[in-house]
């Protein structure tokens, strides 16, 4: 059984948790200014990293708080968990060319080129 360290509750069994997808996606301040391509990319396009990826997780059957986790998508090992709102830590071993800003996928419009 995989143990996941909730920042509030400590190490708890995996089945208490729920994954909420990629973390640190900057939401647009004014969504009405986005065109359809940008909007679609914001909603549906994700980095889908092979290697270390920052994800949002919810301790659904525990404290029910959201937090962030660095997970290696190859080994399924959760390397670090940290509070919502904290910047993403870089711990080494990230995939080559991984984005280093808060936005971990190409800016809107770039991917479709």
């Amino acid at each position: 059984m995989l143990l996941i360290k909730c920042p509030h509750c400590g190490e708890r069994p995996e089945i208490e948790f729920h994954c909420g997808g990629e973390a640190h996606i900057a939401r647009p301040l004014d969504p009405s200014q986005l065109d359809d391509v940008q909007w679609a990319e914001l909603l549906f396009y994700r980095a889908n990293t092979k290697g270390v990826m920052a994800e949002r997780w919810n301790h659904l059957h525990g404290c029910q708080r959201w937090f962030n986790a660095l997970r290696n998508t190859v080994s399924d090992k959760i390397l670090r968990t940290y509070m919502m709102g904290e910047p993403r830590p870089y711990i080494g071993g990230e995939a080559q060319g991984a984005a280093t800003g808060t936005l971990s996928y190409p800016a809107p419009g770039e991917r479709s080129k």
Partner: protein
Amino acid sequence: MSDHEMIAERRDVFHAVDNLTKPSNNESCAISVAAPALRFGLRMDATAAAAAGKPAGFDLSQSINSLRQSVADAASGRLSARLGPDEWLLIAETGADAAEALMAGLTADLGDVAHTLVDVSHRNLAIELTGSAAADVLNTGCPLDLGDQAFPVGTATRTLFAKAEIILCRCENVGQQPLYRVECWRSFGRYMHAYLQESAELIGARV
């Protein structure tokens, strides 16, 4: 072979497995449904809660995943479990007619502090387990480490038991024996009780 005999035969097979896993021990586990109680879900800021003292006799000062019990005051038992950074479950072992008075008392004591307070008395029921095998019985459906080090007296947390979400409280020991209070949704009550009963029999505890 009649239908009746077939059913009887299937039960025999089940009990054969049962007997294999049954250790010859002297462990015990008493499972009982707790008396009806009043319950409130309280959400408020952690620092505000620390400043609030004891609204209506409920202690809110504990750390996350722990509980406070008090039976001293005349209004009988109070139990508050902190389930998250800003969430408490308040349980009062008093009659249902006290709900409005208790709600008013809590609201008055909390005053202007921003909070949400919801009466969930009828949503939950509680099952109490006590005896030397109580932790073993709970571990048949709950993956948490229930050893004395990891889950000492005064621990309370939301977790899973088989297919039901529960709030598991380790209350004050009764004599030498541990006492666990399992809060579950009322609709899961029969499932929980039957599962616990069967687990106790399966591990060979005296029920």
